[in-house]
C-alpha cells in the first residue's frame, strides 16, 4: 500500500514526459514550418526584386555590369568544361552500359535512342549540370557574398549609390542561367557520343547511322524548348537562392558556413521540385 502513491507518481511522470515529448515534437514541426514560410517568402521577394532590377536596369551601367556577366559565364561555364565533360563521358558509359547491352540480348536495340533521349536529354543532363554548377560555383557565391555582407562592403556599395542587387546579383543570375544552359547542351552531346562509343566497344550490333536516326526520331521540338527552359530555370534558381543566403540579412563572419549549407540544401530541393514539375509537363505532352 505504501508503494501505491510512488507507483502513481511514476505513472504520472511517464505520462507527463510523453506529453512533453509530443509538445516538443509539435513545437519542432511548428518551427520548421514557420522557417519554411519565412524562407519561401524571403526567396520570393528577393527573386521579384531581382527580376525588377533586371527589367529596369539591364542597360544601366552596361559597361560595368556586362563585363561582370561575361566574367560569371567564364567562371561558371568555361572553367567547368573539363569536369562536365568528364561526368558526361561517364554518364554516357553508365546509361548505355546498363541498358543497350541488355536490349541487344532481347533484340531491342532500336530502343537505345529513346532511352538516351529520355534519360540524358530530358532528365539527368540538366539536373546533373545544375548540381555540378551548384557544388562548384553556388557555394562560392554564398561565401563571397556572405563575407562581403559581413565585412560591410554591401553597405559601402549603397553609400556610393551603387545598387547591390544590380552590381552583385544580376551578373550572377544572368551568368549562371547562360552557363547552365550551355553546359547542359555540352554534357548531352558528350554523353550521347560516349554512349555510342561504349556500345561499339561492346560489339552491340548498332550502326552509327541507326543510333543517330533513333535519337533524331525520339527528339521532339518540345524537348528543345523544355531543355532550354530547364537550363535557364536551374541557373536562375541556383543564383537566386545562393545570392539570397549571402545577402538577405546581415551575417556575422562565422554564420557564412551555415548559410552556405542552407543555400545548397534549398537549391537542391527547389531544383528537384522544378524537375518534377517538368516531368509532369512531359507526361501531359
Amino acid at each position, binding site marked *: 500500500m505504501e508503494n501505491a502513491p510512488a507507483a502513481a507518481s511514476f505513472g504520472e511522470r511517464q505520462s507527463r514526459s510523453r506529453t512533453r515529448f509530443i509538445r516538443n515534437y509539435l513545437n519542432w514541426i511548428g518551427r520548421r514550418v514557420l522557417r519554411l514560410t519565412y524562407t519561401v517568402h524571403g526567396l520570393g521577394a528577393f527573386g521579384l526584386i531581382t527580376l525588377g532590377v533586371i527589367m529596369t536596369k539591364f542597360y544601366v551601367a552596361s*559597361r*560595368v555590369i556586362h563585363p561582370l556577366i561575361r566574367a560569371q559565364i567564364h567562371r561558371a561555364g568555361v572553367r567547368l568544361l573539363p569536369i562536365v565533360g568528364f561526368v558526361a563521358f561517364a554518364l554516357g558509359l553508365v546509361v548505355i552500359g546498363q541498358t543497350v547491352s541488355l536490349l541487344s540480348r532481347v533484340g531491342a536495340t532500336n530502343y537505345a535512342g529513346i532511352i538516351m533521349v529520355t534519360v540524358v536529354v530530358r532528365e539527368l543532363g540538366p539536373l546533373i549540370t545544375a548540381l555540378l554548377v551548384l557544388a562548384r560555383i553556388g557555394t562560392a557565391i554564398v561565401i563571397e557574398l556572405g563575407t*562581403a555582407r559581413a565585412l560591410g*562592403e554591401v553597405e*559601402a*556599395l549603397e*553609400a556610393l*549609390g*551603387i545598387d547591390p542587387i544590380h552590381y552583385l546579383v544580376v551578373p550572377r543570375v544572368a551568368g549562371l542561367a547562360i552557363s547552365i544552359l550551355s553546359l547542359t547542351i555540352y554534357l548531352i552531346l558528350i554523353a550521347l557520343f560516349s554512349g555510342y562509343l561504349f556500345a561499339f566497344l561492346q560489339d552491340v550490333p548498332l550502326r552509327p547511322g541507326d543510333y543517330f536516326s533513333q535519337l533524331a526520331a525520339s527528339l521532339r521540338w518540345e524537348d528543345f524548348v523544355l531543355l532550354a527552359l530547364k537550363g535557364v530555370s536551374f541557373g536562375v534558381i541556383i543564383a537566386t537562392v545562393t545570392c539570397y543566403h549571402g545577402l538577405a540579412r546581415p551575417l556575422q563572419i562565422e554564420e557564412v558556413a551555415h548559410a552556405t549549407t542552407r543555400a545548397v540544401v534549398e537549391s537542391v530541393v527547389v531544383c528537384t521540385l522544378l524537375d518534377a514539375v517538368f516531368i509532369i509537363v512531359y507526361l501531359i505532352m
Partner: protein
Amino acid sequence: MKEGAAPLTDAATAIEMVNVTVATASDPNSALIEDVNWTVSQGDYWIIGGLPDSGKSDLLSTAAGLTRPARGIHRVLGREIDQLSEDEKIQMRLRVGVVFADEGRLFGHLTIAENLALPICYHRNCRLAEVQERVEQILDMTGLSSLAYSTPRAVNRSLRPRIALARALVLEPELLLLDNPLRGVDPRQSRWWIEFLSALRSGHEIMNGRKTTLVVTADDFRPWAEQGEQFALIKDKHWMLLGERSGLRTHAEPLLHELLSAG
C-alpha cells in the same frame, strides 16, 4: 520629383534631425540613441564624440540615409529621406560621401585603383580604364599613387581608411561623413588627416576648390579639439550638443573632459 518637394540642390542645411531615435541596421525598432535634434549647416565641421560602442557608427549611417531611424524626421540636403524616390536617393548619395570605420570597407576583390574607378564608371557608364587619369590624380593627391595596383588586403591597415577617403572623394561629395578615421592611425598619418580635412573644408584642389561640409566621429577628442568647429556627444543613449569650439574647454560635462584627456 514629387510635386511641391524641395529640390536636392541649394539646401542651406546639409543634415537635419528632429526628435530622431537612431536604430541599429539589424533591428529597425531598437533605440540606440534617443531624441537627436541636430542641424548641420553647409560648411560646418562637426566632431561627434562618444565612448566605443556608444552608437556613433549607427548615427553616421542614419545621417547618411543608409539606416532608417526608428522615429523622427530626418532630412538630408533639404529633403526628407522617406519621401525620396529610388533615383533621388541615388542622386542624394552621390552628394554625401561616407568613410566607414572597420578599415574603410574597401572592396576586397578589386585593386585600389578599381575601388576608386568603380563609382565613377557605374554612374557615368564607362569602362574602368577610361577614368584612369582622374583616379591617378586623386591617388596622387592623397599620397596613395604607389598602391594603385595593390589589393586592399595587401595594404597596411592604417592606410585603408585613407583609401576609403579617396574612394569617397571621387564622386566629389558636398557633405563628407567620417567614422572614427584616426582609430589605429599613427601620429604622422594623424597629422596628414587633420591637414587634409582642413584643406577640404576650406576648398581643396581635389574638389575643384569647392568647400566640403564635414562630420567626424571620434572616441578621442585630442586631435580634433583645435580643428572642429561644432561639437556634440553621445552619452548613455542620449544626444548632447556641446556647442562651438570656443566653449569646449570650459564645458562641465565629465565625458567631454575624459575624451579630451583620453589615453
